[in-house]
């Protein structure tokens, strides 16, 4: 919802803290996910993630969340799906070139990012979207990938 979306950007720092708290919790649950099978937990986790993030960010479930680098403003709400910053057409009042009634997603992203501890993250060049991840859980993907790297780290 547009109202909550704006609220999330305004409270980007609090949400960042929340994310930082939840990530290790999710990571600690890796053995559980693993035993149950990632494929089997995918559906329930995805449903929860979708409800929560849709409400808070108008999340489009791209499956590769970058909210931490975009000031908690979901870039998939940009009509051009720009994931690396605003286009050159942003209106002088900060509204979107394509959808004039909406504030540009990247004007919001810049605002949100200024409050965050990781405010440099917005400078990271994001790779193109992997469309194969659409409608899958980004949370589980992060846990799975991070656990895989940490397991591999100890290896020769």
């Amino acid at each position: 919802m547009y109202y909550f979306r704006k609220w999330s950007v305004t409270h980007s720092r609090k949400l960042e803290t929340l994310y930082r708290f939840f990530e290790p919790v999710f990571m600690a649950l890796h053995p559980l996910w693993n035993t149950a099978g990632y494929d089997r937990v995918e559906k329930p986790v995805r449903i929860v993630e979708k409800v929560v993030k849709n409400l808070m960010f108008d999340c489009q479930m791209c499956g590769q969340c970058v909210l931490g680098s975009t000031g908690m403003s979901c870039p998939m709400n940009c009509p051009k799906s720009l994931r690396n910053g605003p286009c050159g057409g942003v209106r002088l009042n900060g509204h979107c070139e394509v959808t004039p009634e909406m504030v540009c997603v990247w004007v919001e992203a810049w605002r949100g990012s200024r409050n965050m501890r990781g405010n440099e993250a917005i400078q990271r060049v994001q790779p193109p979207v992997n469309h194969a991840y659409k409608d899958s859980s980004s949370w589980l993907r992060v846990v799975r990938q991070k656990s895989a790297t940490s397991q591999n780290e100890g290896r020769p």
Partner: protein
Amino acid sequence: MILRHESHHHPLSEKAGHHSHGRLERVLRAGKFAVTTELAPPDSAQAEDVFELARVFDGYVDGMNATDGSGAHCHMSSVAMCALLTNVGYSPVMQISCRDKNRIAIQGDVLGAAAMGVSNVLCLSGDGVQVGDHPEAKPVFDLDSMSLLATIKTMRDEACFLSGRKITSPPKMFLGAAENPSAPPFDFRPHRLAKKIAAGANFIQTQYIFDVEQLRVFMDKAGEMGLLEKCFILPGVGPLASAKTASWIRTNVPGVYIPDRIISRLAGASDQKNEGQKICIELIQQIREIAGVSGIHIMAYRQEEAVAEIVRQSGVLEGRVPWYPGCEDQECLEANL
């Protein structure tokens, strides 16, 4: 009998430290003040129409951008125009807009263009389809301008596609990107420039600048951030035909911001078209003085024939004659290469 493709033009030799074989990169790296312009593609299937458009700039520009469905209107493709122009020796800039093609099509076009000798690309996100003549078209936006830059840089420097698959002969491209210092969020713009440079931009052409002060603030910040040594910046300018056109552009063309004072100056002039050109010349002269500016990009849609005079009167070429087909003057060749 096998017919060999006949090219009128012999490609320039490679130069150490250069990304491309192109003339535009040579001019910029030689520290000359470069002039580029924009070529509005024809709505025709005639090669001659392209040459005719290019000819009006002969001797006044170092490069010309062949737009890629600009304003989301359909015209001859940028890749084809660039192939035609390169074939006779011009140094066109191929614009690629992410609006119309996905990563498979774009990477293929880059290889094809490079094979035909094209050596400059400008990576753009593109205007939304809603402003064009096919508002019902599907907007693609598979990549964005930033990931497009990174993609072509990878193709060029690491000789592989986004998928990681090897390219046997990489495209030698001089990579360009756009910036708009006049669009919000203003504080973000220099950081966005930094990001574009990190993604691979070698040169930047900006959207129309009408507020020189605003550009100066942007350039100062870019200087502070150490960006000006890392890429060539060519601010964009253009003549306005009348106060009415200016007002129309201001309300209808995304990203072009024209201050009231310019519009009232035009409205007050007896010959508005001439006044528009005068303003353009003044802007070029003021912009040129800003530290870190390497050239100028003149966009004169429907006033292409005025570009030569604008360049001449601005004096930015300092007597240099950019190369053009048929120019045999030794001075002209040597000054550029």
